[in-house]
């Protein structure tokens, strides 16, 4: 679903630029027209069709140097998910390179060469990167290999068919000739690019699926040399921090900057429509200067409710039917005739992404009226347009240098390029030097773009034989598309698909299903957050399923398996996780377990969580067994790391995290009040992968959805209490 949103975002930005509206309306249509109608769903992922251009483009993606290094140009942002390693592995495999010679480099912003084929613009998200690049990088690697072989054949006057390539060495056995890639590179680059290439047989893979490969960043990120956006140091650069309204939707009314200007190191204070920018010699001075500002805010259009009031408002809405997201059979009638009915109301709080590297970007105006940006850029295609809109230049005059990003979890990808727009806006107002805009942690925790607050109400029933006969679910919450120009595209008949994904497409056999949705509005800004709609829909579904299994007197795994007969890949991971967790064997005294299984972003994941309870009946998550089917596994250790991290992410937030508002002001400020998961919270995570040669699908997000409900189900098994309100700390379970 995410990619559809982003397509629309790209169109929106094109349409939104007011000064070039008429021209860009056409541009927007073009962007849409060029997009491939691809959804990252398993049925597509399994198909034979090529994603992206059908001709090999080695020059766009592979650079072989005389020093024998092979550099893969990586069009996706690596924010920890390991995509630089993954994409380099795909190229290296088809190229028959030696892993030790592989390097990675972030590609420049260039929508023509480097668009995400699922978005239509250059950008990373929705766990699409590997699926998206699978064809073009295999083609690029195979084409580069063919060009090296052709060069060697000409140089040695031997038939190309007699030449072999192994670990970065091109050989002709009969004549005992050999050459490294580096020795052939210069001439190979001049060879014609083959129009068609043949891929390797997966059975002969030596790098794809290899558990021994190290990540390309495993050294630079352990000695302090990896360059993040926050580490950018341009000659003469200044640091800016921005004072923003403490209430969402507030604007600057008046500013007294006298004291701020007297802070040593403060260079300038500029009041802008987006807030008050303090520009200083260094970050500390900028932060001190901002503290010395006196700003009066106009709250007339701001959110002034607290979250308690918002939840009460949601509850009132949930009493009434919403827009239909799914309707199969007659749920109301089925429930009326059910042997047992379970009802529950779930509340999911606002959640911040809080990536370790606070948001930041450096912007420098260029002489041609454009600019150069250094950032952990996740949506280059959007950000070029956004910056161009601010400066009144063309998107191609915006050069973006993408650096390692210290996490994102969705936060660095916004449909309006928020923090990039801020940096460019400040640079435009202060054109004398490169401007490095830095968000503090407080800016981040209080700055919105949250996973929306959601309320679900579910009524579901089983018949006398214990089969689910009806399921009626109502979902209430904000849409991050609402209020934008592309609301008419994305919100169909009142339903934002990202708010109901994972619920409206119920995988279990449920003959009578009704899902509806109330789209709520608030100035509180919201955004996709690692695994998007699945963050709440999977939880509500999986916790409810355990309650229904109990009502039906059935084992949670067997109950699920019975209803997944039409979903072999979900059933496969469920069985694998249950087997590895020894589900059928009793646990030691004091241990309890729960299960969850869910499909997201074309990947299939099951979690079995084991918990213990302390004397206050509080949860300690001891162990989680994860099974994943993501098609062909490129880097098993990276998949494992993403399942470990995704599981930690899901559980960590479920334990303690929430963003709450009092009178419209966010209560949490930093990691002391928005408490991140720490070492002592982390369970042992075991990961098992289903062997497959199907098109690889993403792993960055799919490890998240099932983690928290598996823990909640373990708690349910231990106590008989279902955890319907997150975080668990609110119910005293943590």
């Amino acid at each position: 679903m995410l990619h559809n949103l982003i397509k629309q975002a790209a169109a929106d930005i094109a349409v939104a630029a007011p000064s070039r509206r008429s021209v860009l309306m056409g541009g927007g249509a073009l962007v849409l027209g060029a997009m491939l109608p691809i959804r990252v769903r398993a049925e597509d992922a399994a198909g034979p069709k090529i994603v992206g251009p059908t001709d090999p483009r080695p020059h766009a993606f592979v650079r072989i140097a005389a020093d024998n290094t092979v550099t893969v140009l990586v069009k996706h942002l690596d924010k920890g998910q390991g995509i630089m390693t993954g994409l380099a592995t795909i190229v290296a495999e088809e190229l028959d390179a030696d892993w030790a010679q592989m390097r990675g480099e972030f590609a420049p912003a260039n929508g023509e060469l480097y668009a995400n084929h699922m978005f239509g613009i250059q950008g990373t998200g929705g766990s699409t990167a590997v699926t998206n690049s699978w064809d073009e990088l295999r083609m690029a690697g195979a084409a580069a290999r063919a060009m090296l072989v052709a060069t060697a054949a000409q140089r040695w006057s031997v038939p190309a068919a007699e030449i072999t390539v192994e670990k970065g060495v091109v050989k002709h056995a009969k004549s005992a000739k050999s050459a490294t890639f580096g020795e052939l590179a210069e001439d190979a680059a001049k060879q014609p690019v083959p129009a068609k290439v043949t891929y390797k047989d997966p059975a002969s893979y030596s790098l794809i699926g290899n558990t021994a490969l190290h990540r390309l960043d495993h050294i630079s990120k352990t000695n302090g040399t990896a360059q993040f956006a926050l580490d950018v140091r341009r000659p003469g650069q200044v640091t800016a921090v921005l004072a923003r309204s403490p209430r969402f939707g507030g604007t600057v009314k008046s500013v007294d900057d006298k004291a701020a200007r007297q802070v040593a190191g403060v260079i300038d204070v500029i009041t802008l429509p987006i807030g008050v920018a303090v520009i200083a010699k260094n970050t500390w001075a900028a932060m001190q200067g901002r503290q010395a500002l006196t700003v009066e805010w106009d709250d007339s259009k701001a959110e002034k409710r607290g979250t308690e009031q918002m939840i009460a408002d949601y509850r009132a809405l949930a009493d009434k039917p919403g827009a239909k997201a799914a309707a199969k059979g007659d749920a109301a009638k089925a429930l009326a005739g059910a042997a047992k009915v379970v009802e529950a109301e779930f509340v999911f709080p606002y959640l911040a992404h809080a990536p370790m590297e606070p948001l930041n970007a450096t912007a420098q105006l260029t002489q041609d009226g454009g600019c150069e940006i250094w950032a952990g850029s996740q949506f280059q295609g959007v950000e070029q347009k956004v910056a161009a809109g601010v400066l009144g230049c063309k998107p191609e005059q915006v050069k973006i240098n993408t650096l390692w990003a210290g996490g994102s979890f969705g936060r660095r990808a916004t449909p309006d390029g928020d923090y990039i727009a801020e940096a460019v806006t400040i640079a435009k107002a202060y054109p004398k030097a490169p401007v490095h805009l830095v968000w503090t942690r407080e800016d981040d925790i209080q700055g919105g773009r949250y996973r929306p607050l959601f309320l679900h109400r579910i009524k579901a029933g089983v018949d006398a034989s214990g089969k689910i006969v009806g399921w009626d679910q109502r979902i209430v919450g904000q849409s991050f598309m609402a209020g934008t120009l592309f609301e008419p595209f994305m919100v169909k008949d009142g339903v934002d698909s990202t708010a109901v994904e994972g619920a409206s497409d119920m995988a279990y056999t449920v003959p009578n299903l009704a899902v509806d949705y109330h789209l709520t509005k608030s100035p509180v800004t919201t955004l996709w957050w690692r695994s998007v709609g699945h963050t709440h829909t999977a939880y509500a579904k999986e916790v409810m399923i355990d309650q229904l299994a109990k009502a039906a007197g059935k084992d949670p795994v067997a109950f699920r398996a019975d209803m997944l007969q039409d979903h072999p890949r979900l059933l496969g991971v469920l069985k694998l996780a249950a087997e590895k967790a020894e589900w059928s064997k009793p646990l030691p005294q004091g241990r309890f377990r729960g299960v969850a299984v869910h499909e997201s972003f074309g990947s299939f994941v099951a979690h079995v969580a084991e918990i213990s309870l302390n004397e206050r009946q509080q949860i300690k998550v001891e162990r989680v067994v994860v099974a994943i089917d993501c098609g062909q596994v490129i880097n098993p250790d990276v998949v494992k790391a993403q399942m470990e991290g995704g599981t930690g992410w899901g559980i960590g937030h479920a334990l303690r995290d929430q963003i709450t508002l009092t009178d419209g002001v966010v209560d949490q400020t930093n990691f002391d009040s928005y408490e991140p998961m720490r070492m002592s919270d982390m369970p042992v995570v075991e990961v098992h992968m289903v062997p497959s040669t199907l098109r690889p699908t993403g792993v960055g997000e799919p490890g998240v959805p099932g983690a928290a409900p598996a823990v909640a189900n373990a708690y349910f098994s231990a106590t008989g209490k279902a955890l319907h309100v997150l975080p668990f700390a609110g119910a005293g379970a943590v």
Partner: protein
Amino acid sequence: MIRLNINGQEREVDVPADMPLLWVLRDELNMTGTKFGCGIAQCGACTVHIDGTPTRSCVTPVEAAAGTAITTIEGVQGKAAQAVQAAWQKMDVVQCGYCQSGQIMSAIALVAENQNPSDEDIDAAMDGNVCRCATYQRIRAAVKDAAKTMRA
């Protein structure tokens, strides 16, 4: 002017006495391996060693660091540092990597002092270092591996 000893080198900086050491390192001396994560000693990304003790540089006024031996990720050396960095690399601990300078600084101090840390010891020494990617399981394994190297 404040005189500092960083990674064995004498440096002079002309900054306010209350400026946190973190910003002196990052903005004045361009030593960007030490990271900014929270500014209130709640995440550990800014951890450096002051006279061998892991210290949150984001709340350490530069004045307080004068006359001490400051070590940053750029300057770590010795058996414990080598053991920790090698273990981190062997186990591919990193994901986004942003917190790892701080994690490694805390881990070096731990294994230098305790060559057979229990899980509880690791929790106690490392709980102040947040990793939003949740690489904790690998950090724990890498600390144990580094400790093993120290014992050998």
